[in-house]
């Protein structure tokens, strides 16, 4: 399994650039089936390109979301609401967001990329090694989405219907514990574990780097039964071992 930026030629050719000013207009563009269209948050994923020219992506239209007014962050009644186009830097800086989420937002990208990267884009990518998504899971995040004809909610790792646009992510407040293993301190974690004690006393335990997307598990014992994908940074067996160790640690500390 590979992070998104391993893949050459993600979107090197943009045919038409759109910047709608109203959500409905954006949704209409994204709903099209005859024109390949992608939502554009900050561009750190969509615009990234690499390649030997051998595996080009087809040309697409992009719908830039920056004018939709979806970047707000607020807190009320024990819930933090983060707009889809809030940048990771904005989350990292915002006092309303839980400290762990702020830390994970900062860790997700380096400084000059997190000022572009958005929460919606990060969630939509569903990167299997995203510590931030693991954090969102641990904070029982609810992803709010809309299409041109309907709306709904999802978890931070659910696949969304065609044409759906994330509008907001809401999370619980509170504290949590994180542990991780990487090659270096700022490396994308090979495996990370985030644990949060809910109001009802149960523990929300989320892991990254052990399945196709970050996931919630029932407890450290459950980690022993995972069958993670492997790559050059960590084999399947090693990732499973890390999951057990890190899950145990964070659950003991939370």
């Amino acid at each position, binding site marked *: 399994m590979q992070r998104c930026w391993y893949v050459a030629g993600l979107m090197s050719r*943009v045919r038409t650039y759109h910047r709608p000013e109203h959500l409905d207009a954006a949704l209409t563009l994204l709903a099209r089936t005859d024109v390949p269209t992608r939502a554009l948050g900050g561009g750190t994923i969509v615009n990234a390109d690499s390649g*030997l020219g051998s595996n080009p992506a087809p040309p697409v239209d992009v719908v830039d979301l920056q004018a939709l007014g979806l970047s707000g962050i607020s807190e009320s009644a024990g819930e933090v609401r983060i707009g889809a186009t809030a940048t990771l830097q904005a989350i990292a800086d915002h006092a309303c967001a839980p400290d762990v989420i702020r830390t994970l937002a900062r860790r997700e990208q380096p400084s000059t990329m997190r000022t572009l990267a958005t929460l919606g884009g990060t969630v939509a990518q569903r990167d299997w090694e995203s510590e931030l998504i693991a954090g969102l899971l641990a904070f029982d995040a609810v992803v709010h989405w809309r299409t041109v004809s309907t709306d709904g909610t999802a978890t931070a790792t659910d696949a969304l219907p065609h044409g759906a646009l994330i509008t907001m992510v809401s999370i619980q407040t509170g504290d949590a514990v994180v542990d991780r*293993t990487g090659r270096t301190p700022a490396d994308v974690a090979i495996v990370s574990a985030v644990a949060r004690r809910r109001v009802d006393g149960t523990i929300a335990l989320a892991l990254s780097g052990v399945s196709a997307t970050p996931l919630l598990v029932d407890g450290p014992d459950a980690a022993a039964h995972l069958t993670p994908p492997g790559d050059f940074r960590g084999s399947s067996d090693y990732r499973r071992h890390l999951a057990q160790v890190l899950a145990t640690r964070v659950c003991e500390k939370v």
Partner: protein
Amino acid sequence: MQITINLNGTEQTLNCEPSESLMRVLRRAGMVSVRYGSDSGETGAGVVLMDGIPVSSEVMLAAQAHGHSIETVENLNSPRHDLHPLQAVFAATGALQSGYSTPAMILATKALIARNPNPTELDVRDALSGILDRETGYVKPVEAMLRAATLARGEIPDPYRPLYLTPMTDGRNAVVVSPDDLPPAEPKAYPRIVPSKDVPITNVVGKPEIKVDAVKLVKGLPAFTDDFEYEMRNQLICKVLRSPHAHANIIDIDDSAARALPGVVDVIHYKNVARVRYASGGQSWPNPRPWDQVSFDNKVRHVGDRVAAVAAETEEIAAAALRLIKVSYEILPFILDERVAMEPGAPVIHDEDDCDDAFDRNRNIAVHIHGKVGDIDGKMAEAHRVFDQTFRVHQVQQVPIENHIATAWLDSDERLSIRTATQVPFHVRRMVAPLLGLTIRDVRVLKPRIGGGFGAKQEMLIEDIVGHLAIRTGRPVRLELDREEEFVSSRTRHPQTIRFRTGIDHTGKPIAMDVYTIGNTGAYGTHGQTVQTVSGMRALSSYNCDAKQFTCDVVYTNIPVPGAYRGYGAPQALFALESHMEDIARELGEDPLEYKRKYWVKAGDKVDIAPYLGERENPPDFHIPEDELPRVSTTGIEECVAQGQRAIGWHRRLDPTWTHPADQPHVRRGLGFAFCMHGSGIPFLDMGGCSIKLNDDGSFNLLAGAADLGTGADTVMGQIAAEVLGVPLHDIVVYSADTDMTPFDVGAYASSTTYISGTAVKKAADEVRWKLKVRAALMLGLDQPCEVELRDKRCWAPDGRSLSLEEVALDSLHTQDQSQIIGTASYWSADCPAPFAAQFAEIELDIQTGQVTVKKLVMAVDCGVAINPVTASGQIEGGIIQALGYAHCEEFAYDDAGRMINSQLGPYKIYRADEMPEIDVYLVQTMEDSGPFGAKAIAEIPKDGVAPALRAAIVNATGVAINEIPFTPERVYNALRAAGVSL
């Protein structure tokens, strides 16, 4: 489409394509400070401020910027030499080596201070985390940013200055360092110098002069190859079609559809380019064999190998044309691992008939190397014990932030000019000419500033492609590699499998050292012979031993091509050597440092293997008499060790309360040490040339062939000349590395520039100095020119009368018996004085996960006299970050088809500012009489010791020795588990 932005305070409407990055559009608008590092934005070289916030413009569509305010560093620029305070502080603290990403750092500083006027070091490091740097270790940029914030608050920071420390030793003998003896508390960015009483007082040499190219670098003015692109009218863009297969014959190429695409001007490949054999390594004539390359072949030998090249009106058309070239491949079996390359049945990688002088093509052996001194078999047989270990070192890449780039055009005399990011302009000229059917007189190679090279650019890598196309089309042609191409088609470090056998006598003294290495040269030989030869020399030079032998098979495989990489075979060898010596000591129950100290070479000891492992092959009966063997001339290693021990807190390694912290049962801590010895240039081979001429106003033009690749070489050469001529550095105008305009120089490699080229500068300056004295003596009516003294920009008579250099120049150029006062000199050396260093490392290790966290690295270096302590310490700090990556995290990973799967900077992983360990550097002076003003080399030695020091620290922490790098979590975890280490 059109976008409207407020660019540096002015509303501008710019044309762009929907898919164009903001970086490209800004560069087209003349903002050349915004630079390319990768398409995915991780390098941060293209950072701009959008509405005051730093963003990577490489990964933004230009269209996203519509309606926003964009600021580049050009907005800070004042006329001529005036600098904005932010620019000034970066220049003054030496916070730039190549300066390629310095404008981005300055903008990040501006944004940080605006947001947070009182940032902590953590804040600064976080702000820098999006701007990768391979050259400074982030030490001085962090200091510059902190000082900038101080200034912005209206406070005055302490003067930035070198710290002169009291020596801890007498220069020769070891001392016991007390735990109570603490290192200096000043910021690590201040160069720390341990002076030697043997070093004379100088006025310019040894001073922290600001780099001569600092102004254009901090202002982001045109300096690098691509910065001149927009001067090129009618320029074509070249892109290269690369092999998707690790090993394949090309049955046919059909370029008709590509040629038919409007905007495509030419397509070249094996069918229409002359087949001329060469070896691409930038080395002296005649290039070492084998010559196993041609511009375009009908076979590909690694994923990323050249197949064809297109020249088109735009980048988009060129990319589209690549997709239209139809290539029929016969896919062949491939090998990546050097350990299987020689096995029977292994695919033969160079089966072509015209491969020139490979050692044994049928066994994939490109080169076989052997050198020895003493009776190795006899000594091994008489050994009390023999220690036998095998080590494996891996493939990494230099990762210059500026990728390879070259532009070629025919000038008005119809000569071919190539502006290229190269370390070896003269080698490139000589090597490219025959491939293009030209003579050397028909080719001019210009080296502007380089955004890092580290050996990757010691190669004639892409210049032939743009040369072919420029000649064929009659138009300028530009080729710039993207980041993935830089990984898979540029150059890398040789993987090696190294077997060390050492026999010791009953006292523990090594009496026989026998090294067998399999070096992996990938698809082509290029630097295969020379890098592995250096491995042998470095493996067998550090310790006294009666008999030594080095045997090496350099084998072909199907990995992207290894070549020169800073250190040039030494990092591989010293990982094995230092680890081997460490383990012998532990087996013998001795302290590793004390054991090594007994046997490492000291002043006067012979470096006996060196003549037998030179770059040029020796005749079979070659022998050097004992009294003619090279010897260690100076060494400051004991002072280095003492300074390093104090800085790292060496006593803690034996304290179980520190190594096993009670409050963290899964954590172990450790300290490690490595002894490092390197060279200063290649004796009998490297040569540098220099001309210095006097101008009317008493200033001087210094024309040098040496190639400053960001190291500060131009500044160092200027300081040497200024010292000799009695003028400030400002009066020396340095121009370097243009094959039409400057004398020859082999180029920037092998730690040769300060020692070899610097001596050439000194000789040329000495000649000018003498001519100035002659002219001044005439003007002053003195009988003897030697009576004249040059200082303070004047020529002084013994009686106190004096003339300004301007007066002398005007007399010489305009008044009587006119002549140009000019000096030209070149220099080669039979000597290769060794710099020495003590490398220390501190780590923390999680025994449950295998994660190693490097907490601190200390390097104390005897580089003779540092001509410029700021650039010298910067060299070490930058070298250490690369060495750390080599030891800890960087590696090439391949899939089952031989494709590199981590060819971008996220997964490849180079260290960022916000995760660097503490770095502490000491410059320990010795007076090397053969070097200019006492200098030895410094460029490569920081690459040598980090890996073995980390390994030793892991051993100290856990007792587990790991013989393969990098020390990634799973590798370490597996080793701990195998050794039974657990909670």
